[in-house]
Structures are given as structure tokens and as C-alpha cells.
């Protein structure tokens, strides 16, 4: 029962960068990697809630700006030795447009 929301053009997100989608239940970070994959995670680091959207993106990972935990964008999990995980949200890119589904987030809420 996923409801896909069109959020922006792919080009609105800088490569190796992120944008933030504001949401009343907490912001969502949309990342774009070097190979143009797009990932969406809650914009909250599993460590102390750092805004992941502000981190440095590399490979399919992001390093949190507060204490440099590295979060795997595909799994939403912290890379060992750190432990923790952040909610992922389904995203897809079609014709240069980015769609986000909040189904899981609201189901979990």
C-alpha cells in the first residue's frame, strides 16, 4: 500500500550529497551517491541523533557530522565497531524524478 510522493528532481540533490525532507515525525535525509543511487533514511544518527544529511557521503555510506559514525545507506545500519540502526524509507528514481514512500515510516509510527 505504498504511496509514492514525488519530492524533487534528481539534479536537486548534489552528487555525494544530501537534501532534507521536512516531516512532522522527524526529518528524512535523501542521499545521492556517486553512482547516482538515491537512499532515504531518517535524518537521525543512531548514536546521538546527529543530522546525517550533513555528513560526508562516500561509497554507499555517510559519516555522521557529530562523531563520525559511519552509517550504511543500503541497510541503515552503523558500520562496525559501532552499533545501531536508522529507519530506511523506500525511494525510487524515474525519469529524473525522485519518489519517496512513507508507508513504512507511518506503519512503524
Amino acid at each position, binding site marked *: 500500500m505504498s504511496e509514492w510522493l514525488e519530492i524533487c528532481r534528481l539534479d536537486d540533490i*548534489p552528487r555525494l550529497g544530501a537534501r532534507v525532507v521536512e516531516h512532522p515525525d522527524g526529518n528524512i535525509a535523501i542521499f545521492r551517491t556517486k553512482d547516482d543511487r538515491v537512499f532515504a533514511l531518517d535524518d537521525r544518527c543512531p548514536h546521538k541523533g546527529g543530522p546525517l544529511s550533513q555528513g*560526508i557521503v562516500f561509497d554507499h555510506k555517510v559519516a555522521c557530522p557529530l562523531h563520525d559514525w559511519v552509517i550504511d545507506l543500503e541497510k541503515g545500519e552503523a558500520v562496525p565497531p559501532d552499533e545501531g540502526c536508522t529507519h530506511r524509507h523506500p525511494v525510487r528514481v524515474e525519469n529524473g524524478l525522485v519518489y519517496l514512500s512513507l508507508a513504512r515510516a507511518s506503519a512503524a509510527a
Partner: protein
Amino acid sequence: MAKERLVLIGNGMAGVRTLEELLKLDPERYEITVFGAEPYPNYNRIMLSPVLAGEKTVDEIILNDRQWYEDNGITLHTGDPVVAIDRRRRVVRAESGLEAPYDRLLLATGSLPFIIPLPGADLQGVLGFRDIADVEAMLQAARQYEKAVVIGGGLLGLEAANGLMKQGMDVTVVHLLDTLMEKQLDPPAAALLKRSLEERGLKFRMPAQTTEIRGDGRVQAVAFADGTELPADLVVMAVGIRPNIELAQRAGIYCERGVVVNDTLQTFDPRVYAVGECVQHRGKTYGLVAPLFEQAKVCANHLAGLGYARYAGSVTSTKLKVTGIDLFSAGEFNEGEGDETLVLQDPARGMYKKLVVRDDRIKGAVLYGDTMDGSWYFQLMRDGADISDFRHTILFGQHDVGDAGHGDEKTRVMALPDDAEICGCNGVCKGEIVDAIVTKGLFTLEEVRAHTKASSSCGSCTGLVEALLASTVGEGYDASPKKKPLCGCTEYTHDEVRKAIVDHQLKSIPEVMRFMEWKTPDGCSKCRPALNFYLVVAWPGEYADDYRSRFINERVHANIQKDGTYSVVPRIFGGETSPAQLRAIAEIAEKWEVPTVKVTGGQRIDLLGVKKEQLPGIWGDLARAGFVSGHAYGKAIRTVKTCVGSEWCRFGTQDSTTMGIEIEKMTWGSWMPHKVKMAVSGCPRNCAEATIKDLGVVAVDSGWEIHVGGNGGIKVRVTDFLVKVETMEEVLEYTAAFLQLYREEAHYLERTAPWVERVGLHYIKERIVDDADNRKRLAERFLESQKYAQIDPWKERAEGADRHEFEPIRLIQGVA
């Protein structure tokens, strides 16, 4: 053609060292055969003392195990002494009857302990102190018996006595003279030594002449010239050594006290070479390893057919290896007529230092209690250096010359110049050790020993080597001075990457990664910011900053706070402001409802709690009011803190505020390896706390002192004094040069304090104080790069740069 045959007689320290040196030069040249009288492969004889004291085991002191001989194709016969050399047939014969032919022969039979021919010297329980067998016999005796007498109060005797005492024996040292170690110590140092050995439980009988050893089968007592007697179950004779030349003499090789050799270590028979304690060179024989290792090097050079090295004799220095006692001696330590002596003594600390000086040159040294500077004095002595410039402080040590002298052993070693000798035994200098640590990525003492030989013989420089290791490898309190790959994405170190960027004209992050074969497609959060910085420094004006490789603070030009909001600090040059500026800040803070306004430690005003999307707006307002970014968020020039100085303060000697403003105007906007804080004080009262800054300027009557490398953070470090200058222009030039050197050579995320400790103040002085041209060039490069750096990032962004960074995406459709 068959290989030439080389036979070594004597499997000891000098002989095997010669083989090692030879294998380095020409591993293929010879078929090598070694005969050793002892049943062991080559071991570190020096370490017999710690073995006796129970601090090391025999296994631990083996230098080359049997595998080593095998790996190098060397035939080894242990426990089989050579008994005859037939020089006509060029064959040696061993005790077992084994014969080995040679084309070249190397004699390294060492020496024998000198046993005084007293009545009873052949009783059981009378030993020398020379090899593993002696040590084992002593250990055996220590388990069975109680009383030991050591005859001889020299180096060897005291080490034997100390060891036996550690094994639980009741030990008396008998010495002919009233000064211990009279060949190495003057009477005051000898007295200190005696006292501290007595405190440890050793007894002395001196001056005393032994006349007889009494006993029935086994030793029972030692008798003296005055008719008295001392009970003894074990007697160790350590009164000296005699070159072991008997075999050579029988073969008709010319000997005097030792086997006579020329400057190429050749005996009178050109096919026969000799090294080590058995040798007499220019009338001298040696009993310490340092000269023998020098001989080994020269001898190997000739055996390899290179033929250019010459041995010209050695000057030696001595250390005693009794754990807990530091003692160093070199040269003519007893003053002669017309000599001056410099003495520093602190009886309470048990410290004594004496230098004998003639014509402003060191002739000899005795150090007791603090031997850290021994190698320095020894070097000055060997170089015949003129010490008149610093003789008033020379006794306080090298670290004290020209600097405030704070520091533990580590800072002191780091302050040593590269050519300072660290390991006297093997003649290894600081530079070689540091270089090996850096280029070979060494981490442990063992690795340093293996690669440089430093600390591998007598071990008394182990502390220094460890200190070098610690400071070179870093101790990881700040992110990066470690000698290791820049990060997990590469094998290369910071320095290698920087060098490649310049040498190969690499001008972008992908180019660097491709050229240096990065293991990851786009690096990580450690290497990308570092590469970005290195490129900014290498190609000013040309390299386009990759803001995706900057930490968030630098990307949005504000300091992220723990709740994800930001703080904004406008630049206030030199901390001097005006009512108009303050009013502007106040109005802006009110307009944007900034929750907290605070004066910072660096004399600036901090607006805290600003939301990201407000940033461009606030910045626009600040820019219109004439402010630029304070870079309080970046690895950049932060602030120049000043005091009011001579303008207002009754103590002020110079106008520190203006100086601070000028420095800040020149330097703001420059990216740095890490944050850089500066300060200027108007007099030595130092109200601006300049001596804990990365760069601090302190006014004095006659000009300005520049101090560098301070830090007021987790690990406080006081600055090092760099130089004193007279004019503002000079202060600016030195500041620019220092900052540029730091930008060009420090590792990313390395503050100036650990950087200065890593490379040494001496190095920095060399580059910017001693070398005026280099200083000017550095300063010019700094100013050149500033042309492209002093663009206000806030204004740019207020005008729309990187807008996407600041605006979130709002969902237009209704959200569930």
C-alpha cells in the same frame, strides 16, 4: 667459477657483524664457514650482565639463530675451536680434526678474561666473566652458596657484583684503588656510584690488594696484603681482558699486544683479516663494541672487494648497565693542567655532571644520574665544536640551549638534531632512526632494532629509542600524526600523498585517487577532507574547492552544535570593536531571534542556536553591516587575541592591539591543517595568554618575541620560543612563513603543537630562522594563496551560493 672461500674464526660479536655487513654488500661472493669455540650461535655478549641479573634469558640475547646461518648459506661449526692455521696450504684445522680451506681468513677471537696468577687461582669456584658458560656457573653457584667476592671494581666487576647480588648472594667487591671505575670516573662520580651501590646492598673492600685465594678443592676465602681474610664460596675475577692472540701467534701472524692490523683491518698476511678485541690498531686495543662495529664495516668493505673504506681508530664512551644507575663517561675526564672544569651537582637527586674543557672545546665528560645529554656532549667532543656561545647553559643539556626548556625525555629527544647519535654502540643517529620509523612504518622497539640496529647491543639507549618511537609514531591524542596510511582507503601516508600531489601535478581528488590507486571508489570521511586541503594548499587559485569533501562546518561556514543548530561568529579583528559594530550585531541578533549571545574565549561574539535555513539571511545582514566570517567553524585561522598594550596599559611596551589587527588582516580566510589561534601581548605579563597559542607574539622593550606550537586544549603545551625581531614587518613575515610551513608540511588535522613536537623545533628554526631566503619564499607563497582565500564565504552564500545546502524540501502533498 667456484666461489671464493671465506673462513671466520670466532663466532662472536665483531666477526659475525662483519659477515652481516659483507652480506649486505655482496651476498654471493663467498662460500662462508664459521668456527666458534662456544656451543652457541652468535649472541650479544654485552647482555650477559642482564642475564646474570635475571633480567633476560639466554634465548633473548641470541643475535643470529642457526636459521640465520642456514638462510645465508653459511656453514657453522659450534663448540669446535680452531687449533691451527696452516698459512702455506691455506687451511684451518679444528679441535675435532675438521679442516677447512680458505681464500680469505677472518680472525675474530675476541679476548680472554685476565686471571691474576695468584696462589689458588685455579681452585674450583674461581671464574672470569666472559661467556655464557661463566654466567651459568655463577648462577649455579648462586643457587648453592652464599658469599661471593668480585675482584675488580671496573665496569665488568660491578655488573657481575650487581647480578650476583640480584641472585641473592652476599657480595663484596674488592678493588685495588680507592676509586671505582677509575678508567671512566673521576673521584666525585665514583663516590656517588659507590654510595648508591651500597644502598642497594653491595659491600666494598677498597683499597685492598688480594694476595691469595684459599681453599681445599673449592674456594673458601680470599686473603689480603694486610693479613686479613674474607670468606668466599665464589670468586669472580674481573680485573681486565687480554686479546686472545695465541692461535694467531702460533700461525706466525705478527702480533704485539693484539693481532696487528692496518687501516683496512688486514694483518701482515694479506689473506688474513682480523677484527674485534683481538686486534691492535695504531697501537690501541678496544674493549667495547662501538669501535669493533666500525671495524666490521670497514673490513666488510675490503672483503667485498670495494676497497675504499678506512678505519682510523675510535674515540669511545662508556655506560654502565646496572638497572637504575645512569652513568656516562667519555674522553679525558680528569682535568689536566690549564683545563677548565664545568660541574653541576645535585647531591640530593644523586646527580653529577662534569665537563672538562680546553680552549672552549670539550675534552671529556662524566655524567652520573642524568645521562640524557651524554651523546650530545660526546658528539661535541668528537667534532671539536666551539662551545663558547652556550657554555653557560651547556650543563643543563641540549634542550636548554636557546629555548625555555620545558619537557620530558620525549620532548628533549625530539629537540635533538638529526645527526645526534642515539645509539653509541652501533653509531646510529636520530635521523636514521626517525627515517626508518617513518619510511618503513615501524611500530615496535624490536622493529627499530631489526632495521637500524639501534638499541640492539648494550641497550642503554633503549629509553631514547622508545621516546623517538613514541613521538614519531604519535600517541593518537589528536587525529593524525601517526605514521601509518592516511586512512583505510590507501597504503600511502600523508607525506607521500602530499609529495605525489606536487611532484605529479595532481589537481583534483579523483586524479589523486586514480594516480595513487585508492582502494575505494570515492574515499571516505577521513581522506577526502585531507586531500581537499592538500590540494587547496598545493594549487592556490587553481584548485576548485570540493565542498562535498569538507566537514559540515566548513561546508556551511558555521559551527554545528549538538542539537543540529549552528553558531555564527562574525570576525572582529584583533578583538577591537566599536559601538556601531556592537549595535549592528545586537540588531541582527534580535531580528533573527538568536537564543544565546556569548563572548568567546577568543574575544569574539558568538550567536548561538541559529537554524540552518536562517544562516544565509543572518550572513547577508552581517555582511551588509561590514562583517566577514570569523571562521570559528573551520580548520582555519580563528582569532588573534590581543591585550590593550601600550596604547592604554601602564606596563605596555608596544602597541599589541594594532599588531594583532594587522596579523589577523593578513591571515584571515586561510585554510589550515587544523584550527589556528594566535595572540599578541603588549609586555611579558602576557595578558593575552600568547604562550599557549599556535603562534603567540609577546612585546618586549626592544621588539617582539615570536613563540610557536602552544596549545590550551586537552593537553596544554607551552609554546617554544622561535625568534625575537624588532619591527612589525618582521613579525608579519615570520608569521606568514610559519603558517605556510605548517600548511605545507603538517598532516591534516594535526595541530601545531604535535607538529612542532614531531618535526622538532630545531627543524622549524632551520627552515625559517636560519634560512632567510626560505622564510621569504614561504611568506610570499602564503600571501599569494591569500589572494584567493580572502573571499568572504558568508557574503557568497547570502548571495545564493550552494543554496541547496540551506533549504529543506517541503512536502507539498498532504502527509499521512
